[in-house]
């Protein structure tokens, strides 16, 4: 018994030593550095040209001879449409973030900002930051606080400063409304960060003074902080608040950008902040502290109880309770057990797992250590799809570094628990995202699913109890143990706890990754964070859950997003893909697109999926070609419901969802295709009628020459006509005409 007592605390002690050493190392580095140039390095960033920016900075730094300017690598911030993003970080100052950085922009940023101290305003991300501010303040509103007297602190601060004669242009106020990130400051209404006053002209030197943190519980507190701290330069120690690393750094980085400041980042807490190839930075932000706590003082049963209490549900799509899954494995009879990270992110339109793997691979490793301890596994596998070469490289490196520091391998952190991780690659089969197929693939076989039960928790890899969770689920596990399961469960909706990352793409202004609490409405995600639809077009639908999900129409856009509410309206949460569709897309065509996908990805094992999806596709093909027969819509519906009920695995059972949901919400579009042979969005080529606009046609004859059936006639320099009877709807005339004189009808 005494021995037991002695052991408790040892592991944490050891971790603390490691962390302190790491912090010292980083602090020493920071002192040698004046400016850090943070450049995104992820598949998306690189595709947008971040390597070009990096090379240019390297050249310029070398030419300047400055050793105190360093380039730092980071993962993707999730702000895809503005990539490549470059951050200029200086201590004591809000970071400046530049968007869509090209080599030419790099040259100006380097001379004007980095050497000259004058930020290049035109290039700033979302152009929200202005040049010179005397005062920089960031507020964090506590969403958990539900008292009556919540006041608008930012507005109050602004007007108080204005009354004291401070010009509006001299103040920069960032407000963040993340409800979730309050950890150490539950009783506060606002947490507030004040940056040092910018007194002298900015010369680009590092200020040693760091930020001041205040907690605000009533308007009078705020007034005092403004009057004394900002206007007189007298700090108010009795109102100081403790630094909270998880949201402090987030606030500092992102409080001034609308796209970010409405988000709550659990999964993506380190993405775009740490260098994903440097374990020190992960440890600095309490990386592996959760694992150390678990190994130090908790029994596997207690770990499972905590995960159950947190309410965490599988983020891969089905939403099964993670704690319950772990409990099944823990109570299994076989002593040899495995755990798996499902990183076979196959849904087209979902890329949050890629971003996490590339931007914060350590959190997955840490989550798996905790999961392995809880379920009694000694070996884990990370199954990553081959389409993600950079993610594979990053995870490989993270595993190696974790092993070198004693977080993986024999006797982790001096405990009696041993666990190691290995990577296995996918090879381009969508069905391998299904857990039984995935396990077959790890075993080196064809990735075909099998019937369940037995579930993997009873009989998985090589017949042993196996726990499978996806990337996002594993990345959430450390958060639960860092801040407590009760804290985790406070955020989210009644039955779905915590946050969810959505991959926002398609016809939306701000494409990228958005992490919000469960229960946030679709409207908030698409319009408030996503910025709405580009080009003044009209929102038509949002497709969630990939090929297994459905299309949600405008009328349901105020639906709160969680597992159950999405299922209730005929879609699913899925892995979190969110594709916005505007008036230019045809819903029948979108449904056909998904069916073509599932049809070609069907593994062929069961008949309903193999044959059924093909027949459904044929019907859709007829409908979009104007060859629909009477009763095709009903036939389609009947077949869809049949496949749903009889297919072997999740892929087949959900394959008809895109068709069923579009039939439910956009039935009139199907009917127009079938009965009137019309495609209202003018997408289905065979249903488009082309005609000449006599007001615009100048009679150049270009269309007549391009027409493969010679159905366009007219004398040169006179208005031409199209013979609808002979037209094959190829659209050549439309693309050829330089005068917009061909109309689609």
């Amino acid at each position, binding site marked *: 018994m005494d021995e037991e007592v002695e052991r408790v605390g040892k592991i944490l002690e050891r971790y603390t030593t490691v962390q302190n050493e790491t912090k010292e190392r980083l602090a020493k580095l920071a002192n040698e550095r004046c400016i850090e140039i943070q450049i995104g390095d992820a*598949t*998306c960033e*690189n*595709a*947008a040209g971040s390597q070009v920016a990096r090379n240019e900075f390297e050249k310029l730094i070398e030419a300047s001879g400055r050793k105190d300017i360093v380039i730092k690598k980071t993962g993707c911030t999730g702000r*895809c*449409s503005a*990539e490549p993003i470059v951050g200029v970080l200086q201590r004591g100052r809000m970071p400046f973030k530049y968007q869509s950085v090209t080599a030419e922009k790099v040259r100006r940023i380097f001379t004007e900002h980095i050497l000259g101290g004058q930020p290049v305003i035109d290039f700033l991300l979302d152009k929200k930051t202005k040049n010179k501010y005397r005062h920089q303040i960031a507020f964090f509103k506590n969403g958990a606080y539900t008292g009556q007297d919540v006041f608008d602190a930012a507005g109050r601060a602004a007007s108080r400063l204005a009354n004291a004669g401070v010009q509006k242009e001299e103040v920069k106020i960032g407000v963040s409304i993340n409800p979730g990130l309050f950890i150490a400051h539950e009783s506060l209404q606002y947490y507030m960060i004040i940056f040092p006053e910018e007194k002298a002209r900015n010369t680009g030197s590092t200020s040693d003074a760091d930020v001041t943190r205040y907690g605000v519980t009533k308007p009078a507190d705020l007034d005092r902080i403004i009057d004394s701290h900002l206007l007189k330069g007298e700090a108010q120690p009795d109102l100081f608040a403790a630094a909270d690393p998880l949201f402090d750094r987030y606030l500092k980085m992102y409080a001034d950008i609308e796209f970010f400041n409405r988000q709550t980042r659990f999964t993506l807490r380190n993405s775009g902040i740490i260098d994903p190839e440097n374990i020190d930075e992960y440890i600095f932000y309490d990386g592996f502290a959760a694992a150390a706590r678990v190994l130090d003082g908790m029994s596997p049963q207690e770990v499972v109880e905590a995960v159950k209490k947190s309410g965490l549900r599988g983020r891969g799509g089905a939403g099964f309770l993670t704690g319950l899954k772990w409990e099944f494995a823990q109570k299994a009879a076989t002593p040899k057990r495995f755990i798996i990270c499902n990183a076979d*992110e*196959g*849904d*087209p*339109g*979902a*890329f949050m797992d*890629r971003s996490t793997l590339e931007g914060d691979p350590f959190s997955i490793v840490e989550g798996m250590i905790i999961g392995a301890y809880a379920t009694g596994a000694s070996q884990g596998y990370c199954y990553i799809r*081959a*389409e*993600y*070469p950079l993610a594979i490289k990053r995870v490989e490196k993270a595993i190696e570094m974790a092993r070198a520091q004693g977080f993986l391998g024999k006797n982790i952190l001096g405990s009696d628990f041993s666990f190691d991780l290995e990577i*296995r*690659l*996918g*090879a*381009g*089969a*969508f069905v391998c995202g299904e857990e039984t197929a995935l396990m077959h*693939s*790890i*075993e*080196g*076989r*064809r*990735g*075909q699913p099998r019937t369940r039960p037995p579930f993997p928790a009873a009989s998985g890899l*090589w017949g042993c109890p196996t726990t499978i969770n996806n990337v996002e689920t594993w990345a959430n596990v450390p958060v639960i143990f860092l801040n407590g399961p009760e804290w985790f469960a406070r955020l989210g909706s009644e039955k779905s706890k915590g946050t969810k990352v959505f*991959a926002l*793409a*398609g*016809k939306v202004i701000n*494409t*990228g990754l958005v992490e919000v609490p469960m229960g946030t409405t679709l409207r908030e995600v698409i319009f408030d964070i996503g910025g709405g639809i580009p080009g003044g077009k009209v929102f038509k639908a949002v*497709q969630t859950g*990939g090929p297994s999900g459905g299309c949600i129409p405008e009328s349901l856009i105020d639906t709160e997003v969680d597992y159950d509410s999405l299922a209730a309206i005929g879609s699913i949460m899925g892995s979190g*893909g969110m*594709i916005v*569709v505007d008036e230019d*897309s045809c819903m029948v065509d*979108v449904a056909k*697109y*998904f069916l073509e*996908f599932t049809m070609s990805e069907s*593994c062929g094992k069961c008949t309903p999926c193999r044959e059924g999806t093909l027949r459904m596709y044929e019907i859709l093909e007829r409908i979009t070609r104007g060859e629909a027969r009477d009763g095709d819509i009903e036939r389609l519906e009947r077949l869809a419901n049949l496949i749903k009920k009889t297919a072997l695995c999740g892929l087949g059972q959900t394959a008809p969802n895109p068709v069923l949901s579009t039939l439910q919400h956009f039935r009139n579009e199907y009917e127009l295709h079938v009965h009137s042979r019309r495609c209202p969005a003018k997408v289905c080529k065979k249903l488009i009628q082309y005609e000449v606009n006599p007001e615009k046609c100048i009679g150049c004859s270009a269309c007549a020459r391009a027409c493969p059936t010679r159905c366009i006639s007219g004398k040169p320099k006179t208005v031409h006509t199209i013979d609808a009877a002979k037209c094959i709807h190829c659209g050549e005339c439309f693309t050829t005409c330089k005068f917009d004189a061909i109309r689609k009808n």
Partner: protein
Amino acid sequence: MTKQNTGERAYTLERDLQDFIASCRKREHPESFLITVLHKVQARCGYLSNEHMQEVAELLGVPASTVSGVATFYHFFRLKPQGKYMINFCLGTACYVRGAPLVVDAFREVLGIEVGETTKDCLFSLEATRCLGVCGLAPVAMINEEVYGKLTPTAIPGIIDTIRRREEA
């Protein structure tokens, strides 16, 4: 007719690949390394020939039928030689709604080949791939390991031309 690896057989696979396969064979569940091995062979040789697959079967100690079963099941494995530049255009949803079909048409027109074919000079192959996860920059295509984002049909001739000129130089 599977021959045992007696050391007499001359393998076409390079020595280090053979050693890697031998090291896999010594581990627990050697057959579970099959996909990893095929990835390595394809990365080196560009595709999986019948001969390669036969050799992998012998060296790893799994039936040749299993190797060919796995190689044909997964899209990622190619059974025919490919062009030097593998153009993989993304078939993801975001790319689709942002006009990927028009981009594909442009590739077909510029290269004069259909999807799944290779140009006569063996420089380019045109293939579809599953979602590359770069949806924010849709539509995208990956040429070998490099991802090209925000593509438009008009940008395609320039991209192909740049590669062609680089090759001629």
